[in-house]
């Protein structure tokens, strides 16, 4: 058999895992992915938006809208920062759990019960307490509710190794219907909408409704960064996440760490619920969190569970959301467009991680050796 024909049977592509990649290169890959994603969004725009079909040069307005959506007026900017903060705050809550390789996808539910806890206190005790006491009590209720919602799956995980992904997922819906139940109880006129509880409002700081929330989340972000990287508990979380056996070997009580971390995780989500309940809505619906608990999973993951990077990823998603909302408005298309655009960009970013983690060798360049593979 000739050598030529044998050569043809070599695998077309060969993959190997990278050990390291220059950070600059990694960010360039991600940037390229976003750019590619935006190009695809443009193509989708051609298909879905009639105005662009008629006048192709309007495509620049389409791209421009991503900037206009968040930065054209101070109001939009504040809204951008507020939305970024809320999303970031849930993602911060999920981070300790994810670092521990505990796949908490129950951020939605944990945040929602946080809102519920806060609003329940305001509903029952709103008239009887001074404002500062009410707000404090609301905070405690929100933290407690979030912690309880998160610790239930953790207890079962620690004791019986119950699958936490599925468990936390289910807890989201239990929370949703719990809220519906309380709304049925609280709202007797059949409208299903709870009127604003005025007394449950957080004070306005610096003349802007959102500034307090933004500052709180920023402080939390820094605090969590320090906690994860410089505290003993954060170190324990990393060890448990990397290897349970190593943790046991050095005498870390793994169950305790799982439960403690999930209480923290739930409390942070509960706090977000408080910010939504007391800081923004002063009311509650089953949709108060509006799927941000799920989006936050992507924020945390794309940000490599690093609170600093997560500011960027949260910002990116908000930028796309508001940009797409601007497009819906400008081009008169369905209000669901942001979801489509965010989805497309996410596909590209998710896909780009592959090129950061793996090296692809094509046939013909096979002689090039992989960077630092594993030793035999």
């Amino acid at each position, binding site marked *: 058999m000739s050598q030529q024909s044998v050569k043809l049977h070599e695998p077309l592509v060969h*993959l*190997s*895992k990278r050990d390291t990649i220059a950070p600059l290169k990694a960010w360039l890959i991600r940037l390229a992915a976003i750019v590619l994603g935006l190009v695809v969004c443009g193509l989708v725009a051609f298909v*879905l938006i009639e105005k662009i079909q008629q006048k192709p040069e309007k495509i620049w307005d389409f791209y421009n809208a991503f900037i206009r959506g968040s930065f054209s007026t101070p109001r939009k900017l504040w809204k951008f920062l507020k939305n970024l903060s809320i999303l970031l705050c849930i993602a911060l809550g999920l981070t300790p759990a994810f670092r521990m390789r505990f*796949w908490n*996808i129950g951020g939605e539910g944990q945040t929602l019960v946080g809102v519920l806890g806060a609003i329940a206190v305001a509903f029952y005790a709103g008239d009887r307490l001074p404002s500062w006491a009410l707000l404090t009590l609301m905070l405690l209720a929100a933290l407690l509710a979030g912690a309880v919602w998160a610790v239930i799956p953790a207890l*079962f995980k620690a004791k*019986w*190794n*119950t*699958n936490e*992904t*599925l*468990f936390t*997922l*289910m*807890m*989201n*819906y*239990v929370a949703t*219907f*719990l809220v*519906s*139940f309380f*709304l*049925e*109880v609280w709202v007797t006129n059949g409208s299903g909408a709870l009127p604003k509880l005025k007394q449950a409002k957080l004070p306005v700081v610096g003349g802007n409704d959102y500034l307090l929330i933004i500052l709180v989340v920023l402080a939390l972000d820094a605090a969590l960064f320090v906690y994860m990287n410089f505290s003993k508990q954060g170190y324990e979380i990393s060890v448990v996440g990397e290897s349970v056996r190593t943790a046991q070997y050095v005498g870390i009580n793994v169950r305790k760490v799982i439960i403690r971390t999930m209480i923290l995780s739930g409390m942070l989500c509960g706090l977000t619920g408080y910010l939504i309940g007391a800081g923004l809505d002063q009311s509650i619906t089953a949709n108060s969190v509006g*799927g941000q608990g*799920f*989006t936050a*999973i*992507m924020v945390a*993951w*794309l940000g490599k569970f690093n609170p600093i990077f997560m500011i960027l990823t949260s910002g990116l998603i908000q930028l796309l959301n508001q940009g797409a909302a601007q497009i819906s408005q400008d081009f008169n*298309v*369905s*209000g*669901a*467009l*942001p*979801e*489509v*655009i*965010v*989805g*497309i960009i*996410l*596909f590209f970013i*998710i*896909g780009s*991680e*592959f090129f950061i*983690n*793996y090296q692809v060798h094509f046939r013909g360049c096979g002689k090039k050796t992989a960077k630092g593979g*594993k030793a035999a």
Partner: protein
Amino acid sequence: MNIWLNFLIDSLAFGATFMYGSTGEILTEKAGHLNLGIPGIMCMGGAGGCLMLNLIGKSGLPPVLIVTAGILSALAMSMLMGLIYSFLTVTLRANQNVTGLALTTFGVGLMKVIMSKLDATVYLVGPKALYRWPFAGRQDSMQCLGVLFFLAIAVAIASSWVLYRTKVGLHLRAVGENPATADAVGINVSRYKYAATCIGSGIAGLGGFYYIIDYMASQEAYLSLEAFGWLSIALVIFALWRPHVTIIGSTVFGLLFSCSSYITNIDWIRVTMSTKPLLKMLPYVVTVLVLIISSIRNKRENQPPSSLGLSYFREDR
């Protein structure tokens, strides 16, 4: 018709939505992929079917052709979604949870965009009766037991048969349990993962189509579809990863979910409006209980597939 029988049939018919969703999800999970994109896929399945009916709904083609074309279009659209998911998670080995959630975001959004552009008088009014064959025109809950309902049961049983009685099923389960082993005996792991995910997505997509065109058969049906996607994922756990059990499971879920509207009509059961959400919460609570009990009993056969959620890379050791 007896109210209880009516209630049961309605639950069965309603349950077919999740029967599709969870049968599809089971096939995917058996290949080791937790596909949280199922809600988005079901939505896009619905949108895909309606898109086709919007073109041919008033064309006067033979009914069989219209019905088949709608089903094929729903299949194609949702399989396309499955293809996106499998490309990202199988070939590019992306995190399954994140990919699934992104797919749901995308699918739900795109469905809303598409459905807002369609004309319900074309895609729904005429074709509805065709899909409800042979019970079209009945006024009770039997009317929903149409083509797609029987297809759901057939698909669930066939999936179980394939999984547990054929070589292909054996191979698929091996891929989900231990891909390295499957690879070592010469099973093409990626091909099985792709096939299971795409076929599973196709099946799930039919659930969305069924819900819009047959069970609810209303213009607003698509708005509530996402929730049933999540319920389908819950049903997978409830059915302990066995497709034929979803027939019973989906009926139970259907009963729990729709009993609120029936129970309030019966005078001797005193229920207030406020208990309605609690009844709707029950399927999820029951699922959590099943999950807990099966993890406590720790019977090997009732656990999630061992490699669920993990990417497979041959040279990882």
